[in-house]
Each structure stands twice: as C-alpha cells, then as structure tokens.
C-alpha cells in the first residue's frame, strides 16, 4: 500500500481503543499499529484478526532440539574420542548424558526464544517510530493508522468518534 499519511489517535481507555480498532477494521483499514502500556487481552484478540500468530515458538523448538542434539553429540562423541572407563561403566552411558542433554535443551531453547523476541519484534529499534508517544508507557493507548493521504481526514474523524482524546496527523 502506498501509504503516505499516518494518523494517530491517543486514547485514555481500553474500551474506546477497542472501539476504534473495531471501527477501523470494519471500514477496511488493516495497517494499524496499536500501542499499549501493558498487554491487554481484548486488544490482542482484536488485533489477531489482522496479524499472523507469533512464530516465537518455532524458534524455541528449533533451539531446544539443537540443544538436545548438541548435548548428546558432545557427550557421546567425546567419550568415544577419549575412551576413559570410570566406575566400570560403559564409555557411552546414556543416563548421565541425559542431564547434559536436558540442560543444553533448556539453554539453547531459552536463548533461541530471546533471539526470536528480538528478531520478530524488530529490536533493538534504533529510532523511535514517528507515531510513538512517551505517554504510551504511562497510561495512554495509541492507534496509528497508515492510509492514503486523501483518507486521512476520514480516519481522523473515525478516531475522534470512537473516543480519542487527541488525534495527530
């Protein structure tokens, strides 16, 4: 979409924000960014209609499986490499290696999860978005709409009607 204009509505309440999102969706505006001081389930549910599910869990499972594989590979391969028999046990003893496998599953899974949050959430973000307002970490909600310039007036009116405290273009 050749979006040239962006309109930002600032809201003080959860229900008015929700109303604005619903109204915008009903009118076919899909390019929304919603800013909230805390995650709000109702807003998340509403947004889910226009956003794909988070893929963080895919990273987690890949990280976890890599960790388990690394743990078992490292222990088995190194015991074969250096065939040191301790306590009369087989060189490759799986039960103790499960501990290493387990710890590395958690370690790699956890690190992959953080990596996913950073990559998918586009963090670190070096420059603030033009539509960001510091009040969004305090107690205000924001709905930013990207739309063609000729529709900006209509979007502003819609946001005000939904109960926006302030509308910026």
């Amino acid at each position: 979409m050749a979006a040239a204009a962006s309109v930002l509505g600032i809201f003080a309440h959860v229900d008015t924000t929700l109303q604005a999102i619903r109204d915008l969706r009903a009118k076919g505006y899909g390019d929304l960014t919603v800013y909230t001081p805390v995650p709000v389930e109702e807003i998340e549910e509403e947004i889910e209609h226009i956003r794909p599910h988070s893929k963080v869990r895919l990273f987690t499972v890949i990280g976890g499986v890599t960790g388990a594989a690394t743990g078992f590979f490292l222990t088995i391969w190194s015991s074969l490499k250096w065939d040191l028999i301790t306590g009369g046990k087989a060189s490759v003893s799986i039960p103790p290696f499960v501990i290493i496998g387990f710890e590395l599953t958690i370690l790699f899974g956890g690190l992959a999860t953080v990596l996913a949050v950073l990559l998918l959430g586009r963090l670190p973000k070096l420059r603030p978005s033009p539509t960001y307002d510091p009040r969004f970490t305090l107690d205000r909600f924001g709905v930013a709409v990207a739309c063609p310039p000729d529709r900006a007036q209509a979007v502003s009116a819609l946001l005000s009607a939904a109960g926006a405290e302030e509308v910026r273009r």
Partner: protein
Amino acid sequence: MSAGTERAVTWADVNKDVERTVSMPGNTYFAWMCVVALTLAAGVVAWTFQIYTGMGAAGKRTPQMWAMYITTFVFWIGIGHAGTLISAVLYLFRAKWRTSIYRGAEAMTVFAVMTAGLFPLIHAGRMWFAYWLTPYPNQRYLWPNFKSPLVWDVFAISTYLTISVVFFIVGLVPDVAALRDRSTGIKRKIFAVIAMGWEGSDTQWKHYRRGYGLLAALATPLVLSVHSVVSFDFAMALVPGWHSTLFAPFFVDGAIFSGFAMVLVLILPMRYYFNWYPYITDKHLDAMAKLTLVTSLVLTYFYACEVFTAWYSGDHFERASVFAKATKQYAWAYWTMYFCNSVVPLILFWKKARTNVVILYIVSILVLIGMWFERFNIIVPGLGHDFYPYTWGTYVPTITDSTIIVGSFAWFFILFLGFIRVMPSLSIVEVKEVLPHPLKHAVHGAHQGGGH
C-alpha cells in the same frame, strides 16, 4: 504493623512510585552501602590471602574437605530458587499476587546464583584453571568426564545463571522503557540503551508475551533440575546419609523454603523504605507466609523420612551417621536446624503472624540460619563420621574461610542494594496489568485485571 497507607493507585501512580526509587538515594543508603562494601573488602582480602598461602588457610582438613564452602554454595543456589518459582512457576499458574514481588525475587535469584557461582572457584583453590571443567577442543583431546556429577553441576548452574539473567532482562525491557520516557540527560541515554527502543506496539507485545511465556515454561523444569543436580553431588556418593533417592526433592523443597525466607527478608524493608504498601499488601505477605509454611512442613516430612530410612535400612553405617549427627560434637547444629526449619515456621499457622511484619522477619531470618545449618549438617557431620573411625574428624573453621563466607553475603547485598536504586525493582507493567484497566464505560466487571 502494616501501618502504611493502602491507598488506591492508578497506572500513572505506578510509574511515579517506581521512578521515585531510581532517584538519588539518601545518606542512610550510602551508610549501608559503606558497611556492605567494607565487609565485601574483608572477604576479598581473605580470599586473596587464601590464594596466596594455599588452601590450608581454610579450615578444610581430611575428612571434611567440602566443609563451609560447599555448604554456602548449596545455600546460595537454594536461595535463587524461590525467585524463579515466583517469576516462572507462579506466572504459568497465573497467580496475580506474584506481580508486585517478582522483580525483587528475580533480582535475588540472579544475584544469589552469581554469589553461589563463586564458591566452586573459591573451593577449588586454583580458580584460574576453572575453565578445565568446560568442554573445549584442545591439543590433547581431553574432554570433561560427563559421568561426573561435578560436570553436571557446571552445566546446570551455568544454564541456570544464563536463563535467569535472560529472563530477568527480558522482563526489565518494557519497564526500563517506561523510565526512559520520563527521565532526562545521561540517565535517559542509559535507559534507552537497555530498553532497546521498546515502544509497546502490538507486534512487540505479541512476540514478547509469547517469548515470555515460553521462557517461563523453560525455566520451570530448569529450576527443578538445578537443585536436583546439586543434590546428585551428594546422592551419587556412597557416604552414609548422602546416598539416597530422597535427595533431589528434599533439596528442591529446601531451596524454595529458604528462598522464600530471603524474599521476605528483602521485600519487607523495601516495602517500608519505598512506601510500597499499596502494592505489597497483607495479602501478599499472607501468601508468602503460607508458602513458607507449606515448604517447611514438607521439609519436616523429609527430615522424618531421612531418619526413618536410616533406621529401616538396617544398615549399620546409615544408623550410626544419624546417631552421630544428633548426639555427637555437631548435635547443636542438628538441633538448631530442626528448631529453625521445623518448629519456628509453625507459628505461621496463626493468621495474625502471617501478616505481622516483625514475626515474619524473625521467622525468615531463623529459617535462613536453619537452612544454612541444614547444608552444614549434610556435609560436615556427614563427612566427619563415615565408615571407619580412623577417618572421623572434627572441622574447625578459620578466620579466613569464615570471612569469605561473610563476604559472600556482602557481595550479594552490594549487588541487590545497587540494583534497587538504578533499576525498577517493582514491575511497572505487571503491576499495572492486575490493576483495574481504565474504562470509559464500566459496563461489565470482566475487564478488571483481565489482561493478565
């Protein structure tokens, strides 16, 4: 005693109440910091002396080569567990009361594990060779012995430290962003770097929330595994009183028990000095006290099991070990442990005690003492009375090892005291989440804290 005003708070108040805590502290704070820093300096001097003169400077002698350092190592690892329990396990259970204490508890976890991690180094003596424990390619094709519980420990503790730190920092990001938006100058720049440009947009929250839940789900089995692995250091050995399948759950429960005591020790003064009465209410104290009580009762059950198993096994050495612990030169430590861990917390059955700050504080301190002695009783009398009389012995601490242990508390407190004045030690986001959400038309009450 909880005389603080329990005023109603708005979202903006939460920000203000946390911003207050990261301002320039007063003289009392610096006075405490000086005391802690001097104690830490004494610990550093003692450690330096031990490195310079050799391990003989510590009181460790055959047979009690593990003595105080491993006792204190297990103690600190245990302290960390309550933090992960509060931040991860209670998160998964959606226990709303966790929100106002979890940041402090999580900081406690990270710092406690950082303290614990020093002890294997202090204990090993030549700590500059500590990297030998990690697997790395080398010219001699030498690899760690993965069948050794000590190597499991390395993996468990380093994973625990890494995941705890990551979980802690991830939790901090939105809160630091809130502080960034309301500060100026150099402070703003530092907060901006830590907040990584967080804006609270729906995409950010979506991935963040999913990631946070998954981290909590990973941290939950991890926290149970860590103290189990630490218990294997003992349970895998053949020493009487150690070689028991009871050890893993016994250690995990004890860890959570001592950790809750430490949370109370840290949270109660914070509530007083930061005037956080609206956030940490009697309800929170009651919940924490109940968990302390439950873990205490479970621990008492394990103590009983330990004695019963020794008796029921019919094994002479097992019986002799328990008998020696209860009646010989370390009997005072054994009964101190029983008194502090099994008897003292019983007062928490009384409802008024669960919200009485003074009683809670005294109970918590006694529990911490009791839990340190629990590890002492496993290690020192356990090693001091094994199979043959000619290997029996009595451990006498030296000034060097005692100073190092006192210094470890200073190290923990310097980190914690430093943290609470530079970072949000109350989670802004999570506390707001459980407050009533701002609504223009309060039509249905379902919105109240519904976002949690």
